[in-house]
């Protein structure tokens, strides 16, 4: 097995990877930008190297720096986490060239799946359901119109190099089509330097359901069942669960088989995710493949007992999968919430800042994947995710009840966060019934607002606590605040 690996990432996922590597007896090398010197992964890794300014373009995205640190530290492999360079084909290639193992698929698989048209064509050839659409070379106005009519309106215009909603247009009527194509091309050109677009049928209020797969370098591929990710705000996942409330045993088998086919079609190796759109009639369509570890991977771990990071490392080292498809278990129910530093009562404005005090929930069925601590300042340069809160229960109802308890126990003081908002989702009747699709948050946004009234005795108790604290501080005015006392090293001067 590897003796030492480098983690080319930050935040919770860096810590997540360090934990599994440490369990395997592998030494860990962290890297950090200016903003992350005090971050948990830097503190707990065996080694830590500075790689540049806070802007990711000057640190976490600079492939050459990461290779340099890997060589200097003697790390034999690089785990890219998610985001940053994790789906960068050139980086995978560069690692290979430099004799460092990239813990992820090879450049070809990343490239094929990264280009949406190539991915669509590859999937169609392998017999995977794709959203009805048109992606051929002839992009003349007439051809586009003919194909759009065949698909039927509304249609989506999407950029082949796309992602994150850029270069995407929803077209309801034929008369708007050609103009929309023109605009999408312009956007795609400026965002990705590639103006190729394609057409897809618009799937109305779909479910977003994805399958986890694992593939070794010896041609063995398994899937580890689905994750339901339909609770989204502006295309960002907020809550994920497995099993999907929509899923049937039969559909699971069919979709799982297609997920395995999809991975095989690109000679995939490592952990990957096949995303599908599923409509209310259980028609499903390949959406895209994420050629990396997914943020929401823990719910799969909770229900399968498989440590996906350990599997990634073993696969990268060249080991064969030790789990056969028939041995994959799915026991109980697991749900994940993403805890963000944002203000749900103020249009979800990001709310970076200093965490004065944090207490994470604990006890039966709870897992927290975080990276912050009391006194830590959440940098404003990256994603405002503080942690992932994951629960497991014997069934969906048990997991929902446990999540409510966990959210009640979770205490973050010093900045705005979305815990109260998440709690309201877990109290919402439609969510409790498992009757939701990707429109859930939009449709029930009014229900999810902070209630107008509060228990009066509770507010009295809060007022009493403030009263006491206020005078307590006044009396002890030589005692500085905790966060001042905890200021960084500069005080030593």
């Amino acid at each position, binding site marked *: 097995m590897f003796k030492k690996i480098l983690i080319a990432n930050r935040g919770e996922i860096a810590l997540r990877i360090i934990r599994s590597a440490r369990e395997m007896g592998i030494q860990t090398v962290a890297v950090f930008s200016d903003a992350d010197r005090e971050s948990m992964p830097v503190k707990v890794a065996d080694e830590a190297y500075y790689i540049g300014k806070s802007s990711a373009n000057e640190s976490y995205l600079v492939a050459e720096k990461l290779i340099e640190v890997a060589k200097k530290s003697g790390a034999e492999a690089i785990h890219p986490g998610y985001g940053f360079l994790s789906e960068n084909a050139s980086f995978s290639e560069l690692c290979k060239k430099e004799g460092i193992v990239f813990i992820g698929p090879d450049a070809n698989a990343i490239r094929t799946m990264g280009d949406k048209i190539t991915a669509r064509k590859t999937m169609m050839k392998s017999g995977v359901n794709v959203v009805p659409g048109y992606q051929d070379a002839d992009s003349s106005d007439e051809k586009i119109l003919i194909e759009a009519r065949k698909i039927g309106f509304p249609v989506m215009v999407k950029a082949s190099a796309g992602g994150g909603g850029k270069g995407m247009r929803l077209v309801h009527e034929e008369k708007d089509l050609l103009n929309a194509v023109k605009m999408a091309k312009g956007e795609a050109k400026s965002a990705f330097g590639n103006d190729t677009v394609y057409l897809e049928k618009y799937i109305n209020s779909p479910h977003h359901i994805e399958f986890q797969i694992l593939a070794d370098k010896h041609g063995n591929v398994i899937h580890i069942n689905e994750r339901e990710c339909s609770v989204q705000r502006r295309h960002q996942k907020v809550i994920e669960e497995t099993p999907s409330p929509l899923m049937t045993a039969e559909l699971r088998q069919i979709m799982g088989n297609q997920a395995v086919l999809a991975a095989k079609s690109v000679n995939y190796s490592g952990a990957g995710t096949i995303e599908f759109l599923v409509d209310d009639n259980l028609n499903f369509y390949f959406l895209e493949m994420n050629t990396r570890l997914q943020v929401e991977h823990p719910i799969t771990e909770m229900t399968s007992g498989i440590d996906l990071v350990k599997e990634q490392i073993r696969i990268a080292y060249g080991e064969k999968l030790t789990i056969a498809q028939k041995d994959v278990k799915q026991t109980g129910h697991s749900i994940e919430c993403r805890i963000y*530093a944002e*203000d749900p009562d*103020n249009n979800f*404005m*990001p*709310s*970076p*800042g*200093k965490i*004065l*005090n944090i207490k994470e929930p604990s006890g039966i069925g709870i897992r927290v994947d975080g990276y912050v601590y009391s006194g830590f300042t959440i940098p*404003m*340069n*990256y*994603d*405002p995710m503080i942690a992932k809160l994951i629960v497991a229960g014997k069934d969906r109802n048990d997991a929902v009840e446990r999540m409510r308890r966990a*959210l*009640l126990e979770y*205490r*973050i*003081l*010093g*900045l*705005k*966060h979305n*815990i*109260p908002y998440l*709690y309201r989702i877990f109290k919402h009747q439609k969510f409790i019934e498992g009757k939701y699709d990707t429109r859930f948050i939009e449709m029930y946004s009014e229900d999810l607002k*902070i209630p107008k009234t*509060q228990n009066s*005795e*509770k*507010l*009295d*108790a*809060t*007022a*009493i*606590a*403030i*009263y*006491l*604290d*206020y*005078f*307590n*501080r006044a009396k002890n005015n030589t005692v500085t*605040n*905790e*966060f*001042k006392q905890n200021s960084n090293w500069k005080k030593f001067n």
Partner: protein
Amino acid sequence: MKLDINIFDENRRVEMLSQSCNNLVIKVNDKIYNVDVKQTSSFEYSLLLAQNSYNIELAATENNPKKYFINHGIDNLTATVTDCQSRYAQTRAVFGHTDNKNLIQTPMPGKVIKIFFNEGDKVKAGETVIIVEAMKMQSEYKSSDDKTVKKILVKEGDTIESNQPLVILE
């Protein structure tokens, strides 16, 4: 000693009537409570109001000792204290964001992405004056009415602190 505390947009006048060790008699508006209280850490108070147990986490904000962050039950609130000193001096601006419609500032630290006007320019109601980015999310700050740009205190690319004045209109 009395204190007015504004939580969740309601005012509460709090007054301690008596104290014996950690058993207090406290009046909140017209209600009188027997409270058993322990401060269990810098940020935490455990209160028993009769039999009911309340665990309240709080911290005065870094730049304003009269504004508190609070965690209580699932809620995540802010509250403001008005004591004798500040009762008269207080303007509405003390609670929450400023209501000064001529001052553009942001509640969070970030980076100035774009400024659309120069000093002296006319701005129409609803027009975006400045875009600020924090944590990959861009926020547009607009003018509430037809105004003139009086002063621009930052430039594009600047890193800004929370509540730092950015643009003054008039």
